[in-house]
Every structure is written in structure tokens, then in C-alpha cells.
């Protein structure tokens, strides 16, 4: 039900975006900027939805099952604890995927409507002003690159991957935490640190380049490996800019996300397998 509320808010944002007056030939840069703003707002909403849902839903799973005693009736069936954890985790991922898919459909429809509207307005004007066919084709390609295409879907995939990592971290923390609030806050900390890891590495590299190495820096260097690098996974930034992504980069990001998820799930299982409920 809460997912539904989020989708309604998202749909309202998308409809609101359609009210914006998009450019003409003389405002070619403005048109692209408008599309960037539209995608930026949409991806911001998606990231907030995905992060809130992944953290809140997963952090509450085990404590709620213990409180409601549904955990007893499940674990006394021939179900391994790993099966239980995986079932719960992939249930959250399925809900997340459905929510993001709905948002993706809404965003794609809004972008398609906007881009086609821009083209319908700008192409006749360009032809009337005597632009060459080559320039007109280039304009079409540029605008469509900002529209609903493969790039957009990859951006949504990136949002999903980050949320999947966050959900796995929240699950891992909830296996030993005695407080849901602690799980929520600790996962938020992991998210914030994960967003800053890239900058931190840059600073550390700069210090190292200037020969200012210290024990604290080398410890920080290794600690940085413990946190997922969410900046690295933020492929949607390129999507917002209308840039095409390399397949190799996408695969690498998928592998990094899979690695983080696997580590978190293995740790969760290790802690939960002997946990007394």
C-alpha cells in the first residue's frame, strides 16, 4: 500500500513536468536542459523510493516476524534458515522491481510525450529556417537520446542495483541487531558513507601523491573497501546527461553490486543460522 502512495506521488511529479513549456529552435539548449531536469527529478524520486523501501522494508522483516511469531511457524517447517533469508530478501527485491518498473513506464511515457512534442514543434521551424537535413537529423538524434530508450532503462537498473545492495546490508544488520532503529540508522550510515567513498578515495590518492601518507590514511584506505561505492553504481547520472553507457561498464557495475549483495547475504546467513529465536 505504501508503495502505491509513492507511485501516486511519482505520477504527480511526472504530470507536473509535462506542464513545463518546452523549447523551440532558438532554445535548443533549453530543451535538452528541460529534459535533464525532468529526468533528474524522476531519478531523484526513484532513488528516494528505492532507498527508503529497501532499508525500511528489509530492516523490519526479521523483527516483525519474531514479534508476530510467524518466524516460529515458518522455521519449524522443513525450511533452512538460508532459504528463509533468501525468500525474504528476494521478496523485497520483487516488490522493489515492480515499483521501479511502474515508475519506469510512467517516466518513459512522459519522456516520449515530451520529446515527440518538441520534435513536432522544432522540426517544421528548422525546415522553414532552411536548416540542412544533416543538422535536422542530428537534432532528432540528440533529442531522442534524451528520451525513453535503452539508456533510461540502464539508469533504472542502476537505481535497482543500489537498492538491492542497501537491502542486503539492512538484512545483514537486522540478523544481529536488537533494535530496528539501530538497523535503520546503521544502514543509512552505510548509504551515506557509500556515497562519499569515491571522494574519500580521491582525497587519499591526492595525499599519497604528495607523499603525506600516515597510518590513519592506510587504515581509511582499507576501511573504504568495506563500504559499497554507490557513486560508482550511479549510472543514472550518465542517463540524465543523455550519454550512452559502455556495456563493459554496465557489466562491471552489475558484478560489483552482485559481490556486495553476496557478501552481505553470506554474512547474514552466518549470523542467522545459529540465532535463537
Amino acid at each position, binding site marked *: 500500500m505504501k508503495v502505491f502512495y509513492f507511485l501516486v506521488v511519482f505520477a504527480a511529479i511526472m504530470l507536473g513536468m509535462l506542464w513545463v513549456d518546452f523549447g523551440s529552435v532558438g532554445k535548443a539548449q533549453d530543451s535538452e536542459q528541460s529534459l535533464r531536469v525532468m529526468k533528474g527529478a524522476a531519478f531523484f524520486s526513484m532513488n528516494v523510493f528505492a532507498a527508503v523501501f529497501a532499508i525500511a522494508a528489509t530492516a523490519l522483516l526479521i523483527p516483525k516476524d519474531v514479534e508476530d*511469531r510467524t518466524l*516460529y*511457524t515458518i522455521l519449524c517447517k*522443513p*525450511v*533452512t534458515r538460508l532459504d528463509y533469508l533468501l525468500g525474504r530478501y528476494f521478496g523485497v527485491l520483487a516488490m522493489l522491481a515492480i515499483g521501479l518498473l511502474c515508475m519506469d513506464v510512467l517516466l518513459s511515457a512522459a519522456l516520449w510525450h515530451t520529446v515527440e512534442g518538441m520534435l513536432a514543434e522544432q522540426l517544421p521551424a528548422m525546415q522553414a529556417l532552411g536548416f540542412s537535413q544533416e543538422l535536422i537529423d542530428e537534432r532528432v538524434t540528440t533529442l531522442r537520446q534524451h528520451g525513453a530508450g535503452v539508456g533510461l532503462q540502464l539508469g533504472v537498473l542502476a537505481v535497482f542495483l543500489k537498492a538491492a545492495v542497501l537491502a542486503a546490508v539492512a538484512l545483514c544488520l537486522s540478523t544481529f541487531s536488537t533494535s530496528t532503529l539501530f538497523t535503520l540508522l546503521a544502514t543509512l550510515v552505510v548509504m551515506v558513507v557509500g556515497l562519499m567513498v569515491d571522494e574519500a578515495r580521491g582525497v587519499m590518492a591526492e595525499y599519497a601523491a604528495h607523499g603525506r601518507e600516515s597510518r590513519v590514511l592506510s587504515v581509511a584506505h582499507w576501511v573504504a573497501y568495506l563500504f559499497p561505492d554507490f557513486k560508482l553504481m550511479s549510472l543514472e547520472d550518465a542517463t540524465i546527461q543523455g550519454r550512452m553507457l559502455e556495456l563493459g561498464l554496465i557489466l562491471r557495475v552489475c558484478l560489483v553490486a552482485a559481490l556486495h549483495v553476496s557478501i552481505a547475504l553470506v554474512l547474514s546467513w552466518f549470523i542467522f543460522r545459529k540465532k*535463537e*529465536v
Partner: protein
Amino acid sequence: MALASSNMVVEIRGFRKEFKSALLRKRLVAVKGLSMEIAEGEVYGLIGPNGAGKSTTMKALLGLLQPSAGECRVFGHDASKVDARHQVGYLPENPYFFKHQTARETLEFYGKLCGLRGGGLKARVQEMLDLVRLADAAERRLSGFSKGMLQRIGLAQALIQDPKLLVLDEPTAGVDPIGSREIRDLILSLKGRGVTVFLCSHLLEQVQEVCDRVGVIYEGEMVVQGSVDSLCGAGDEVQLSVGGLDDAGLQSLRRWIVEQGGSVEAMARRERSLESVFIDVVTQRKGGHGV
């Protein structure tokens, strides 16, 4: 590992459970070296006051807790292993389920956890709904169920995979006297089908009615255990129920007993229990259906 004695379904030997308090790391001993066995087809009742260690023992038997010492075995398997739970059904005290699910969906969910699929699952779910008399409420969400109905759906999920061992924690908690009697009859019928039952209950009269053997646990220790007959028998005392005699006839009977060398310990007009009055009234209103 094979069972020491082949017909033992449950074997608990020297089971000890300690809990550590979070702050002071003080140890609380919940169960102190408890040992017991339950044979195949037996109905065993574990009774004791609150906090005596009944639920801890049940949880250990279901693999939800690890013994601090000793061992718990079910069908010869270590109770903490999944293999031990294939033939075990469990009804917790005051069971809670996913409230957004209907009764049918709940049973399908638990059936799938036990590996049931397709037509076999559907047939089994319907059979269980009929057994616990919830067929009419099969499509209703559990959020609208009464406590008694939740207890019945709990019993149905415990029986979904046709287990050979049924573990019941306060099976009649919150259930009205008719429902309580139905559960008692169901336990007896399961016993007739060879199902082993291990139950904890505060309703000692009911435990006495359905159990073959009883264990009394107090402060984590098994104080006494044995067959109901051996524990509840009152030596050479005999209870005689007589009808159709007036006061003079009763006095004659008393004299005759004394002449025979016996003694009359108690003689009073028999009264019906409130429970039997309630059950008769409700059964009549239902048109003779019921227990």
C-alpha cells in the same frame, strides 16, 4: 544416527538451556538437565507453571533454540537439523499469521514450505479447511478472524504435511469450550491414526483426558513423569456413581459398604459442570451438530 530405541519419536537427554542477560552477562538457567522420551503414537503432556521451561523445551525440539548442553533428537535426527522437521507439525501459543492472506492462501503458503505442490496441495488444503471447519471462511482474510478461528487455522497449518509428530503449545488457549472439546477430539483422533502428540497446556483436566503420559516440570527440572494412570490413580479408592436411590437407600448402601470392611470417603449429590451445561445448550441451538 539411529535411534537407541527404534520406536522413540522424541528423545531429550540432559537438556540444559542457559540464557545470558544482555547487560550484566548474568546467566539464567531455564532448563536444568531435562530428560524425557516420547514413544511412537503416544500423547505426552508437559505441564508446569509459567516460566518452568516448557516453551524452551519445545523450541529446542523444533530447532529454534540450541541446547547449552545435552541433546534433543526427533525421529533420530538432531533437532536443530532440517531433516528432523519433515514430519513435525507445530502450533505455537497464540499463533499469528500474515493477516493479509486468506485462510486458503495461508494453508497453501505453509503447504509449499513443506514441499507440497499442485493438485496434491489443493486437495490437502481443502481437507484441512474441512477438518478445522473453516471451509466457509476459506476466502476470508485472517485480519477478520476471531482468536478461536486463528487457533483452528494454526492447527490446520500444523497438520498440512500430515506430520507424524504434532507439537502443540497451549492448543486450546483462547478457544471457547466447544472449540476446546473439538481440539481434544481431534487430538484423540490423531492418536488413533498413530500420530505422536507432544503438548503443553494449563488445562490439566484436558491433559488428563487426552494424554497417555505426563511430565511435570518445575523451575527447569522434571519433577515427576509417568503414565496418567500411575500418577492420578488413588490406590484402592473406587469411585461409584449411583442413580435412582433416595436418602434411605443411600444410607443402606453406606451401611453395607462399612459392613464389607470398606469406608465411604465422600458421598454427595452429583452436579453437572458448567461446561457440560454450556455445551448442551449451544449444541441444541446448533440443531444437534457439534462435538
